[in-house]
């Protein structure tokens, strides 16, 4: 039972963290809860479909369908995250400074939360499909221990949900005016890590062969299959044996986000000086 719990939990860590982060990022934005719920729901349906058609997907595109599919949805998530950060750089600081203070979130609703809903959907779909396949295998092989394993899997899923809650609560405990900076940073590293994962699939498919040598091997120090390693894998893209190209793409993604944020964040200097909220008595949450 414990084995199944750990396998399932390991699979859902990434989705759990991502949904928790998105919930914190969109906290207080009108309609954001519905969008996230929709994203997670769509992700679950998608996970069922991906698992159900695993055979078809695997055989598609001359046998590299699975890799191309994974790489594509990872890149969608990356683009959505970058878009969100850039949008927030050009509009968000102002909103965070003014809107939050008066407690009126109406204009906050214009934020591109749909992009983050998509991010939730693809995260849940990707990992959910693997959990679905694993659990299907358990049920199909219906041994005497099957029920035990199914219970373990269910507990693993619950642990994933708990991780979402902990992530969310941990982030929203951060004072409002710092939360923006923290989540911007989190999303940047998250996007870079997902981009590096997409590279892995393209290399596995043989679409890209260049720079496939291993950049470093820190598996003896911190394996990225350990629970902590897995958390770091999602949060900052930690990998214990990345290829050189993964490292290059990781750095490039961070650079792109930095440049775009600077380029589109010009309006920030015209925003009410950030002294404003700082000078005001800190709201007691």
């Amino acid at each position, binding site marked *: 039972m414990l084995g199944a719990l750990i396998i399932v939990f390991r699979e859902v860590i990434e989705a759990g963290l991502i949904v928790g982060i998105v919930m914190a990022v969109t906290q207080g934005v009108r309609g954001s809860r519905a969008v996230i719920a929709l994203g997670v729901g769509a992700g679950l349906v998608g996970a069922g479909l991906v698992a159900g058609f695993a*055979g078809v997907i695997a055989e598609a595109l001359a046998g590299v369908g699975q890799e191309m599919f994974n790489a594509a949805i990872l890149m969608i998530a990356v683009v959505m995250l970058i878009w969100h950060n850039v949008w927030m750089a050009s509009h968000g600081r102002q909103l965070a400074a003014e809107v939050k203070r008066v407690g009126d979130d109406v204009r906050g609703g214009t934020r591109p939360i749909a992009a983050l809903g998509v991010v939730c959907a693809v995260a849940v779909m990707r990992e959910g499909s693997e959990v679905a396949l694993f659990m299907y295998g358990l049920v199909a092989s219906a041994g005497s221990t099957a029920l035990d394993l199914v219970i373990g899997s269910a507990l693993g899923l619950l642990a994933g949900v708990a991780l979402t809650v902990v992530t969310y609560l941990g982030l929203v405990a951060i004072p409002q005016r710092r939360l923006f900076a923290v989540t911007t940073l989190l999303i940047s590293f998250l996007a870079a890590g997902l981009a590096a994962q997409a590279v892995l699939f393209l*290399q596995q498919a043989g679409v890209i*062969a260049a720079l496939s040598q291993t950049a470093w091997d820190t598996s003896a120090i911190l394996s990225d299959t350990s629970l902590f390693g897995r958390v770091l894998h999602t949060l900052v893209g930690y990998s214990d044996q990345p290829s050189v190209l993964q*490292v290059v793409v990781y*750095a490039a993604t961070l650079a792109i986000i930095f440049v775009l944020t600077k380029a589109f964040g010009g309006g920030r200097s015209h925003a009410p000086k950030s002294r404003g909220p700082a000078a005001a008595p800190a709201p007691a949450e």
Partner: protein
Amino acid sequence: MVKARILPLLAALIAPMAGVAADEPATMALTLKDHRFDPGEPAAPAGKPIVIEVTNLDPTPAEFESKQLRVEKVVPAGGRISVRVRALTPGRYRFYDDYHESTAEGFLVVK
């Protein structure tokens, strides 16, 4: 950490793109039955890209995975997949079925 990321980046920029793509890959077949790999320790040549074909004879799905080979791919019940692995240096590379890691594990022996 920052340094660790920058060094390989510099190396990558300076070193010319290695033309491994042109090499003919070596092919290697594995089967999964009763959640065990056959052969358990397949051999492969060093210095050549390798295409690993995995056929799953079990009635349940598997996930062929290896950290060292950097592959991760679902193998449907009764299905067959192939993954491409970079040219390797001699050594033993562990692979496993992520869903049945306790029995389904093997080593790619590169010589």
